[in-house]
C-alpha cells in the first residue's frame, strides 16, 4: 500500500471484531432489505413506474401496486408518508418577508 493513503474502513479493533463476518453482513443486508420492502412500498411502486415501458415492466408495476396497497392496509407505509408530509411542509416554509411578496404577487 502507498504510504500516503489512508483507508477509511480500517478501524482500530480487537481480534474478535476482526473475525469473518460474511454471515453477519448477509443477515444485516437481508433484514434491511425486508424492512424497507415492508415500509417503503411507495418507492418500489415509483421505481416501477419510472422504468422504460414493456410487458415485464407492466407486470412489475401491477405487482408493486398490489404490494403497496397491502402494506398500506397494514399501516406500514404510514411512517414514511408522515415523514414526507412534514418534510414537504418544511420545504414550503418561507420567511415572513417572502410570504408578503408571494401574497402581493398573487
Amino acid at each position: 500500500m502507498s504510504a500516503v493513503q489512508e483507508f477509511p474502513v480500517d478501524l482500530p479493533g480487537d481480534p474478535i471484531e476482526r473475525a469473518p463476518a460474511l454471515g453477519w453482513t448477509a443477515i444485516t443486508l437481508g433484514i434491511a432489505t425486508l424492512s424497507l420492502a415492508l415500509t417503503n412500498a411507495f418507492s418500489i411502486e415509483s421505481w416501477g413506474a419510472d422504468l422504460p415501458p414493456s410487458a415485464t415492466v407492466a407486470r412489475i408495476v401491477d405487482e408493486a401496486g398490489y404490494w403497496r396497497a397491502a402494506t398500506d392496509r397494514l399501516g406500514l407505509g404510514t411512517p414514511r408518508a408522515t415523514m414526507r408530509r412534514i418534510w414537504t411542509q418544511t420545504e414550503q416554509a418561507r420567511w415572513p418577508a417572502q410570504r408578503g411578496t408571494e401574497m402581493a404577487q398573487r
Partner: protein
Amino acid sequence: MLFPTLTFGVFFLITFAVVWSARSNEWRKILLLVASWVFYGAWDWRFVPLLIASALMNWAVAQGLTSERFIDRRKALLLCGVAINLLILGFFKYFDFFTEQVGATLAAIGFERDLPVLRVILPIGISFFTFQGISYVVDVYRGRVQPARLLDILLLMSFFPHLVAGPIVRAADLVPQFQSRPKLDRSMVSMALLLIVWGLFKKTVIASELAVTFVDPVFADPASHSALDLVFAAYGYAVQIYCDFSAYTDMAIGLAALLGYRFPRNFNQPYRAQSLQDFWRRWHMTLSAWLRDYLYIEALGGSRGGKLLTYRNLMLTMLLGGLWHGANWTFVIWGALHGGVLAVERLWADAAPKRWPALPGWAKLLVTFHVVVLGWIFFRAPSFADAMTYLGGIVAPFAGPAGFTASPLIVLLIAFGLAMHAAPPHWMTDMAVRVRRFPAPLVGVGLAALILVIDAMRFEGVAPFIYYRF
C-alpha cells in the same frame, strides 16, 4: 446506473450474493469484472470496448516495460503508453473545443472555414480510468509496482464502485488486494454501511435540494437576483459540490468494502483548510495526489529547479487540472486562480519576514474558504460572461434587484453543510466502532430506518453526480 437508485440497489444485492458465493478468487474477479461491465454498459454499451481496450493497452505497455526485448527502449515505450492514454482522453474531451477555437481564430483573421465538429459524446469516467492507466504504466516504469496479470488490470480499471467518479485507486493499492480472496470483518462492514447511508443523505437530501430549488435558478439568471441571493447561492454551491462529490466517493468506498476491498480516503473536511495547500490535501485527495506525483513532480520537475520553476510548476499543474475538468475557459480561470494562490502562498512562505505575526487560524480559514468559493463561481458558471455578471452582482449590490429567495430550509442546509466541517474528524469511525458490536438484526433494522428517513426527505428524482461529466 446511479448509486442512489433502486435499480442500483437491486444490482448491488445480486452482485454481492453472486460474488461472495464464488469459491475461487479467480472466478470472483471474473464475476466482478462482468458486473462492472454490466454497470458501465447500463449507461452506454458502446463504450465498454473502449474501457477494455484502454486496460489491454496499459497491460501490454507494462509487460513491455519489464521485457528484455524493450530494455533499450523503455522510455520510448512509456512515452508511447502515456501518449495513447492522453490521446484517448484528449479526443473525447477536447476535440470539439479545439475545433471550435481554431474555427473562431480562423474567422477572426478572415479565413472562415467549416471545420468538422463531431459532437463527441464523453464516455462517463474516462478521466478516471485514463489517470489510473497512466499512473500504472509510470509506476511500473519507475519500479514502484510489478506488472500485474491481465485480469487484475482489467478489474483495476473497470471495478464499478470507483469507475465513473473515483476515488482514483492506484495499482499499488488495489492489485495486491486482488491476489487472495478478501475477508469481511464487522469493522469494515460497519464503516461501509455508515459511509453509504451518509453519502446517500448528502447527495439525495442536501445536494439535490440545494441544486434544484436554489443554486441552479440563481446561477441560470444571476442578473435577476439580489446580491444576497448571489452570495448565498455561492455558499450553497460550495456545500452542494462537496455534498455531491464526497457522497459519491463515500458510497464508492462503502460499496467496495462490502465486496471486501479497501479504497483510500478522498475527502477530509476540506472547508476547514487554513491555506489552499491544506485545501488540496483535503479535497479530492486522490486526484491531488495524482496531479502532485505524476504531473507536478514527474512531468514538470516539482521544486527541483529552484523557486521560480516551483511557482511556474504549481501554476501549470493547476491550469492543467482546471482544463482536465472540461474544455471551457471558466475551468482554466478556476485552475489559474488556484495555481496563482498556491504560488503566492509558497512565495510568502519563502519570503515573509520571520518576525511578522501570523494570521490567527480562524482568519486563515475564512480567507481560504472565500478564495475557494470565488473559484467555485467560475467553476459553476456556464460561461466567463455569466461568471462576471455573477461577480458584478455581488460587488455592486445596490445596482441589481432586492429581495432574498432562499427558503429557511435552504439556509439551514447551507449552515448544516458548513457546520459538518466543524465536527470531530473521527466521528464516523467512533460510531462504526460502536455499531460493529451490535447484533446483525439490530443493525439491519437501524439501517432500514435511516434509509427510510432519507427517502422521505429526498428530492424527487436523482440528478447525476456533478463529477460524472469530468
